[in-house]
């Protein structure tokens, strides 16, 4: 047993940076996949819906860890070249979480009232404009809370990459533990670090959600997302506030 030296702390810090990179890159890929697949699952062409449905079922039903191994070890046999472990990880996480995310996109888009589509038709807006200008702006605020869940799942999922030797936070922790022989302080610190990152993400997503709801006509933007009182305040539904403010005349 020995002390955690500054050099070892640095390994952990580097690990945090890699974890953040992995999270950000995978999330970007997952978001793109989620929108493309989610919208494809609502396409009027049956073949498009079917293809997207197959993608969704396959990637939802496979383990991200096995997919990562597969991309890293099996794919090279066919392609003749091997992905960097980091990119295999981003691909595996992005494709898996994109499949989950597609369900979020599909659900939120499908939840926009029919009348909104119909008003778009009545104004002769072309299908693409109806989606982009009418449906998505209203669906977007509904997507943010479930996206936040997925983002945090994804953050924690990045710990899988350590088994492939990517030097993320979990990998750093294992190194430091081996060097010092101390499990308790290392893993306690790591646990907290994951929590702090996740919490910061949640706060960020809430700001995003509040802005999105304000932009969707559900009430004015609210201030002070990071004030201590608000930090732990129970979440209020902006929609409820908007409904109340419009009075009883809307039936």
């Amino acid at each position, binding site marked *: 047993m020995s002390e955690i030296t500054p050099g070892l702390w640095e390994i952990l810090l580097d690990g945090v940076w890699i974890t953040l990179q992995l999270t950000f890159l995978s999330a970007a890929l997952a978001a793109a996949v989620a929108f493309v697949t989610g919208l494809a699952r609502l396409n009027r062409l049956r073949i498009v819906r079917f293809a997207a449905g197959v993608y969704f079922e396959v990637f939802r039903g496979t383990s991200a860890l096995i997919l990562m191994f597969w991309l890293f070890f099996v794919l090279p046999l066919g392609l003749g070249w091997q992905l960097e472990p980091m990119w295999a990880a981003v691909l595996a996480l992005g494709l898996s979480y994109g499949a989950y995310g597609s369900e979020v996109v599909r659900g939120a888009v499908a939840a926009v009232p029919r009348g909104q589509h119909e008003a778009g038709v*009545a*104004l002769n807006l072309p299908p693409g*404009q109806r989606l982009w*200008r009418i449906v998505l702006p*209203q669906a977007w605020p509904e997507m943010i809370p479930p996206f936040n869940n997925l983002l945090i799942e994804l953050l924690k999922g990045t710990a899988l990459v350590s088994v492939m030797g990517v030097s993320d936070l979990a990998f750093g922790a294992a190194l430091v533990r081996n060097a010092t022989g101390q499990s308790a302080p290392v893993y306690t610190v790591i646990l907290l670090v994951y929590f702090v990152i996740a919490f910061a993400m949640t706060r960020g997503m809430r700001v995003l959600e509040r802005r999105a709801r304000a932009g969707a006509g559900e*009430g004015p933007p609210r201030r002070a997302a990071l004030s201590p009182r608000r930090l732990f305040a129970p979440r209020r539904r902006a929609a409820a506030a908007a409904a109340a*403010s*419009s*009075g009883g005349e809307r039936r």
Partner: protein
Amino acid sequence: MPADTANAYTDTDAGGRAQGRATVGTGTTADELIRFDRVTKRFGSNTVLDSLDFRVFPKKHVTLIGPSGSGKTTILRLLMTLLKPDEGTITVDGTPLSHEERNGKLVPAGEKHVREVRKNMGMVFQQFNLFPHMSVLRNITEAPVQVLGMSRDEAAERALELLDMVGLKDRSDTYPGRLSGGQQQRVAIARALAMRPKVLLLDEVTSALDPELVAGVLDLLRDIARTTDITMLCVTHEMSFARDISDCVMMFDEGKVIEFGHPEKMFGDPEQERTREFLSAVL
């Protein structure tokens, strides 16, 4: 009421049936603005429109009445291309809605063709269907800018004129969620008119409103009917409004026009027993 409507209800069409095709206005086939030929629409095993024939000439105001489920709203939705007929043809201003000619052949209409025909129609919905994420002004300007290619400034100028007409010029920056139902519906009317349609389809536009807000919307529509050339097809339960604005009232039952005529005649001395029953129930 225009004088020509009084004797306008005899069918001059060769294909007309014994009862006579419901016809509103006079003119040749080339002048027709809306024409339904044996249009049938089913939902599952329920036949909502049963081989329906009727035609409407420009500038006429037609009110569709009848018990709920008789297919009135379906007619408007078919015209707005929100539904497709199972059989028959709908023609708007001489162009079929569901088919187009390509290489000399009649083929199912593509999106481009449908949008071209759809230009003629505007619709106001029972539930307003304003876009909640856009200001009142933006609700009105969005389609003129995106679809008609109008500049933002020009569209805004016209939108403000329309808002002035519907009495809401001072609410242009408000979001729909902050307006009363009556105000929302007036914005929806302005939004439909901004696209300069030839036909305005009004689908029970006051049914979702609190009673005290109904009059304002109906007065506005009376004004529009009186001062513009727009053709109106109107599904309503407001019989006094129907009497005021209509050139023709069509009574529907079980997917057919069972009687049609001038409102004075329809409300004063209807011929069909079924019409009499319906009117005595709603008046």
